[in-house]
């Protein structure tokens, strides 16, 4: 947490969405996002964030939950062309999905505000 506060201060980043299991920040100066999740703080640019979303949204969570004969309750989330790999349990995948859904809702809201308030007024 201390580390994140320092980063927030020096990089001038804004919290986009936060859940009990993680937080996503946006950096306006770097045009990117920082994801604090599963004990890691990772940087994602536009393309990588889209890829992460696609990867997470495509995981068949219901299938994972219904599957009883799995040896390990783990799913490897690998996002190609990005430096980050997540190895997550089913519960963590649900948590990450929730975090991403909230984040994209906030970004959509931010987009609407920009459109209506700033872009329309120019």
């Amino acid at each position, binding site marked *: 947490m201390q580390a994140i506060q320092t980063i927030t201060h020096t990089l001038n980043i*804004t919290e*986009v969405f936060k859940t009990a299991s993680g937080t996503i920040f*946006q950096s*306006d100066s770097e*045009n*990117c996002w920082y994801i604090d999740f599963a004990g890691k703080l990772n940087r994602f640019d*536009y393309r990588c964030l*889209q890829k992460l979303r696609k990867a997470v949204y495509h995981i068949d969570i219901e299938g994972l939950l219904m599957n009883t004969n799995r040896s390990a309750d783990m799913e490897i989330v690998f996002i190609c062309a990005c430096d980050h790999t997540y190895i997550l349990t089913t519960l963590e995948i649900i948590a990450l999905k929730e975090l991403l859904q909230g984040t994209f809702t906030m*970004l959509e809201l*931010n*987009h609407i505000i*920009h*459109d209506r308030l700033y872009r329309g007024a120019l």
Partner: protein
Amino acid sequence: MKDIMRIKCLISTEMESILNQQIRKEAQSSSIYLAMASWCDRNGFDGSSVYFFKQADEERQHQLKFFKYVLDMGATAISPDVSGIKIEYNSFREVFEDALDQEISVTQSIKNIASLCHKEQDYVTMEFLNWFLKEQREEEYKARRALELFEVIGEEGAGRWQIDKHVGDIKYDSEA
């Protein structure tokens, strides 16, 4: 907070996904027309075969038009996989019935995109789409006219031979 998503990409995620569906649909159309060209060629309907080869080419161009638009707007265009294309037809007439069905379903899916454009007030994509709306007018007209040849000429005697000879003559030249 900066609107980074919008800076990177003009269209919404939903729009990107529906346009990618259309890319698949156009690719499918192209493959279907190619299968029709093959069937017609195999069964001695050379005129119709040429007609469907041309249609297949046109659909490929439609696919690329959507593909490039998606890329130009900063989104991801996905090269589609097309499978399950019909090879055999029960009759010469069935080929043309299927062709019209296919065009009607394409018109419908383009109308669905238009409706999303209105919902999102995405006038940029709407303007791009106008070309396709007009194109569908021609596509449906041609498919309908072709099928009508079966009524006008009739299939008896040298009927099918006549139909095959005249399919290539169908033109749509409305300036409206």
